[in-house]
C-alpha cells in the first residue's frame, strides 16, 4: 500500500519495487497469453510502463495484481486484434506446427511431453480471447473468482460460466486434434 501511494506521488524507487514484486506474475500471465518469449517480454514491460502512466488513477485499498492483470489482458487483446488484422505476423502457423518462438527447433528435443504441451498451447490459442484470459488467470495464475472478476471487470457468475465454457471448448478442440492425429 505504501509503495503504491509513494508511486502515485511519482516515487520511481517505490514503483521499481512494485515492478520487482509483480514482475514474475505479470510475465507469467503475459507468456501464457502470447506463448512466446519476445511477445511476453514486450507485453510484460509494456504493462508496467502503462501502469506507471496510470498509477495515479489506481484506487488505493484495492488489490494491485488484478489491476495489473487487467492491463496485461487488455494489451493481449489488442495484440490479438492487431495480429488478426495483419495475418502475416500471426503466430498461429508456428503454434500450429507445434513450434514456439524462442524455443529450440531441434526435433530431437521434442519429446512426447513437449508435443502434448504444444498441442495444448495450440488449442488454447484457438480459443476466443476472453476464454484464454479467464483460463490463464485461473489455471496459470491461480486467481480466485473474485480476483478474476476484478481483473476482467465481469461479474463472478460470468467468471464461473465463462470458465466452464472455456474448459469445454478446450476439451472439444483437443479431442478434434487428437482425432486428426489418429
Amino acid at each position, binding site marked *: 500500500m505504501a509503495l503504491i501511494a509513494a508511486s502515485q*506521488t511519482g516515487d520511481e524507487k517505490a514503483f521499481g519495487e512494485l515492478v520487482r514484486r509483480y514482475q514474475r506474475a505479470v510475465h507469467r500471465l503475459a507468456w501464457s497469453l502470447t*506463448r512466446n*518469449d519476445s511477445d511476453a517480454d514486450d507485453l510484460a514491460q509494456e504493462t*508496467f510502463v502503462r501502469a506507471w502512466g496510470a498509477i*495515479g488513477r489506481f484506487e488505493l485499498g484495492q488489490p494491485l495484481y488484478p489491476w495489473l492483470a487487467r492491463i496485461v489482458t487488455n494489451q493481449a487483446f489488442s495484440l490479438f486484434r492487431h495480429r488478426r488484422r495483419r495475418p502475416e505476423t500471426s503466430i498461429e502457423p508456428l503454434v500450429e506446427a507445434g513450434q514456439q518462438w524462442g524455443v529450440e527447433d531441434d526435433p530431437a528435443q521434442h519429446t512426447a511431453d513437449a508435443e502434448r504441451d504444444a498441442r495444448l*498451447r495450440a488449442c488454447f490459442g484457438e480459443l476466443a480471447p476472453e476464454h484464454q484470459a479467464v483460463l490463464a488467470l485461473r489455471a496459470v495464475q491461480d486467481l480466485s473468482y473474485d480476483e478474476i472478476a476484478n481483473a476482467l471487470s465481469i461479474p463472478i457468475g460470468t467468471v*464461473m460460466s465463462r470458465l466452464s465454457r472455456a474448459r*469445454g471448448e478446450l476439451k472439444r478442440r483437443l*479431442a478434434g486434434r487428437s*482425432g486428426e492425429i489418429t
Partner: protein
Amino acid sequence: MKHLTDEQLSALLDDALAAGERAACDAHLADCEACRTRLAEASALEGSLGKALTHDPGEGYFADFAERVAKRIADRRLDVAPEAPKKPWLFTPRGWMFAGSTAALLVTAGLAWMQFHNEQNVVRAVAPRPMTQLREQVTPRESDGAQAEPPAQAPTASTAPAPTAAEERARNATPNPAAAGSQLTRMHEVRTLPDGRQVPVDRSAPGANADSRQEPSAQGFAAPATGSAIAQMKKKSVTPAAEAGAPVPFAAPSGAPARDKDEKEELQASSEAAAAPAPAMKTAPPAANAPRPAAALSQDTARGQSLRAWGTAKSLVLGGRADGAKLNLSGLGPHCGKVHDSRGRALAGVQVTAVQNGVRTTRTDAEGSFCIDGLKAGDTLSVMHVGFDPYTVVVTPSTSLAITLEPVGTLGPNSTMLMGKQRSLFSDAAGTHTAAPSESLRAPSPDVYSGQSFGVRQLVRDARDVTSVARRERTAPRFEQAAKQWAAVLGQVKGAPADDARFQYVSALREAYHLEPTRDREARFRSAITAFLALAPATLPERATVTRWEAELNGASGR
C-alpha cells in the same frame, strides 16, 4: 441419476461452489464413477494446461527487468510524475475530441433526418394519391389520413406511444440516444388518423429494428456439448494395453445404460488385474476416498482413460493401477505408480529412484505415471521434482506407489521442512513409514496462504521458488536468499501464515548453516530459533521440530 453439469464440474475443480451445492456434488461423486472420471480428467487437463502455459525465463531475465522497464519509461519521456487523477476526462484533449465528434455526428444525423422528413412531407402534400412506394411504406389508415394532417402538427398533442417509438428508432440510429431522441421527437411529424389518434409518419422497418435490438442478447456463446465420453472411454478402458496409444476424442456422452454394464466390466477387469501376481496391487481402503473426491479422483485417471486420450500411453497399463493400492512385492515385474501434487494434479517428469543394490531411475510420464523394475522390500524409493519436497521412503509391502508431493514449503506430513531430512530419518527405520499409503488418498493439505491477497501469495510463490532452487543447488547463499524471501512474506502476514513463514525462515537458515557453518550463520539461525519459539503457539506441531533443532545446535556447539 442426474449427473453433474459441466459448470458444476468446473466450479468443483476450482473449489468455488457454495457449501450446500458442494456437499450435494460430493454426495453425487461418491456414487457416480462417471462423474468422478470426468472430474479427474478435467483436473488432469487443468494441470497439464497450467504446465503448458507456464514458462520460467530464469532468474537472469528478472534480474534487470525493472531496469529495462525504467529505461522504456524514460525512452518515452514518461519519467515525469505519473498522471494524477484530478482532471475529469471531459477536460482532457481526448475528452474534447470525443465531445466534438459526438456533437458533429448528432448535428449531421439531425440534418439528415430533417431533410428526409421534409422531402417526405412535400411529396405527400403535393401528391394526393402517393406513389406506389410511398403507399407501401404507409399503413392504410395513415395513407387515408395523410392529406388531412398539417406537416407540423403540434408535437405536444401526440400521445405517449408515438414519441416513445420515435425515440426507440433514434436510439438505434445515433450514438447519443438522449439528445437525438428528443430532437427527433420534435422533428418527427405526427399524423392524425381518421379515428382521431395520432401516429408518427416514419414507418421504416420496425421489424428490422426490433431484430437488431435483440441480436446482442441472442448472440452469446454456444453452450458446449455437455458431458464427456465417459461411457466411450470406459469401454476403451477395458481394452488391451496395445490400444493405449490411440487417442480417444472427448465426445458427448452416449447413453447411460451402457455405462453400468461397462462399469461392471471394468470393475471385473480391475479385480482380475489385482489378482494377477506380478504387477498386481490391492484396492485402496474405501474410507480414504470420502473426504475430498477431487483429490482421490485424480487417482482414477491412472486407469488409463486420460492417458489414452492424450495419446501418450506408455508404461502405466503394464503394471496395473496405482490408485492408492499397496505394493505387492512378490514378483520381479515392473511396479507402477503415479505421482500427484497435493491438489491432485498429475506431475510429469518427476524423477523416481530406487536404491539398494544399484540404482534404478525413471521419470513419470505426462500423466504422472511411472513403472520401475524389480522393486524390493528394503529399497529406498526417492521421488523428486522441482518445486516440491522430495519424498523418500524405505519400501515395505505396505508402501503405496500412489504418491503425493507437497509443494516446497507446505507443511504436509511429507515435508522435509517439518521432518528434517527424511532420508536420514527413515533409512534406518524400514517399514515404519506408514504415512505414505494414506497420504495419497487424503484430502490435499490446505495451503495456509490461500486466504491471503494475491500480492502475498505471489511473495510466497517466489519464496517457494527460491527455496526450490536452493534445494536443488544446495548452497548456503541460496538458502539465505530463500530465508530473505520468507522474511519478506513474514512482514506481510499474521497468524497461521506468519507461523508458517517463520518456520520456513528458520528452516532455510538452518540449511544454510548446515551447508557452510560460520559464526554469523549460527548466530542468525539461533536468533531465528529463539524468535520462532517465542512467537509460535504452544500447540504448533513445528515447535517440536524447532526445539529439536535448538537441542542439536546446542549439542553441536557444546561439543
